[in-house]
């Protein structure tokens, strides 16, 4: 077949899909839920199970199953699944080593690689086509707010939804990451690590006897600046939690909403390239969570020598 006829056939197919989708696959945009839906009927005492929690458990099961299957019959020369898992882990380990150095890489690796794999699988899990069709039908009482108020209607509460589209999940990961940053900082530098936040060294130097008055003033000024910088460092630790969690949530949630809107505008044809884009975004977001956590760990464990060099 000639190249030109091939392209023509592909174009014709796309147009046919476009027409068929527009004729038969139109649907009204369902309301966008920012909060994870609670699965009705699945309840353990006071604990209500949301669909993101259920999916997080499924993602965990997938990761555990792959790990067990890959290591069940280990061979020196790996084949198949073992080979693939080894390739993934070795790539991650080399990356970890290139950022953190050979000394700290073994200690960081377990946490950062777990974060990467978990975020990656949960990002991609939400992209499985048809996933949100599995659900429990619920009689929906009309929204009080605004434009969706159209009386009682039936809605599907999906059983599965990517954990990354639930802010709670991302907040938990971000808090784990920032907390472990402090832990590694203390392991590496001891109590000296907290000197980053409460920096009174400059003020102490200003109060030392035997310093000229002018020098005392300048030391005092620098000490005050250092103190303010310490406060800023403490604030930036809190800001890390916010930006970590909202970055992942915003990217993945916005991606899914975009796919939904595109599917309601132009069914079948337009969604496919954007699905590919979302696969890429899911990988990039997992990578960014991984590399930022790693970078913060590395920054916390390396002593900031320039402060000693100043005086």
């Amino acid at each position: 077949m000639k190249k030109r006829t091939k392209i023509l056939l592909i174009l014709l197919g796309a147009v046919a899909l476009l027409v068929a989708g527009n004729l038969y696959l139109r649907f009204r945009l369902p309301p966008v839920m920012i909060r994870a839906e609670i699965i009705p009927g699945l309840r353990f005492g006071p604990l209500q199970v949301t669909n993101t929690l259920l999916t997080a458990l499924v993602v965990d099961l997938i990761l555990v199953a792959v790990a067990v299957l890959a290591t069940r019959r280990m061979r020196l020369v790996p084949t198949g699944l073992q080979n693939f898992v080894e390739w993934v882990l070795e790539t991650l380990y080399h990356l970890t080593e290139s950022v953190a150095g050979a000394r700290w890489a073994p200690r960081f690796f377990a946490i950062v690689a777990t974060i990467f794999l978990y975020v990656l699988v949960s990002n991609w899990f939400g992209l499985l086509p048809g996933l949100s069709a599995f659900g429990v039908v619920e009689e929906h009482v009309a929204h009080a707010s605004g434009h969706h108020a159209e009386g009682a209607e039936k809605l599907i509460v999906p059983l599965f939804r990517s954990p990354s589209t639930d802010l709670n999940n991302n907040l938990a990961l971000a808090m784990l990451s920032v907390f472990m940053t402090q832990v590694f900082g203390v392991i590496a530098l001891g109590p000296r690590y907290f000197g980053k936040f409460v920096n009174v060294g400059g003020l102490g130097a200003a109060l030392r006897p035997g310093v000229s008055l002018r020098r005392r003033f300048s030391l005092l000024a620098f000490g005050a600046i250092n103190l303010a910088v310490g406060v800023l460092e403490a604030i930036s630790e809190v800001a890390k939690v916010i930006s970590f969690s909202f970055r992942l949530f915003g990217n993945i949630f916005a991606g899914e909403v975009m796919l939904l809107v595109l599917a309601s505008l132009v069914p079948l044809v337009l969604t496919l390239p954007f699905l590919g884009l979302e696969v890429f975004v899911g990988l990039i977001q997992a990578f960014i969570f991984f590399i930022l956590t790693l970078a913060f760990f590395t920054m916390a464990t390396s002593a900031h020598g320039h402060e000693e060099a100043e005086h």
Partner: protein
Amino acid sequence: MDLSTAKFLAAGLAIGLGAVGPGIGIGILAAGALQAIGRNPDATSRIQTFMFIGIAFAEAIAIYSLVVALILLFVL
């Protein structure tokens, strides 16, 4: 202007204006990284890593405004 009109307008403005700065920032970042790779192709992988970190920081600002827009549209 009633409340829902104001809400839509605010959401559109929030993401539209909020995307300007990060767009410029990511452009500058990518330009710098490409220049660096052009000068020193051997350091490509390291430069890429740092470029992604920088892009993540720049992009976070856009994500904040996206979250604000989503909250305006669907929560408030």
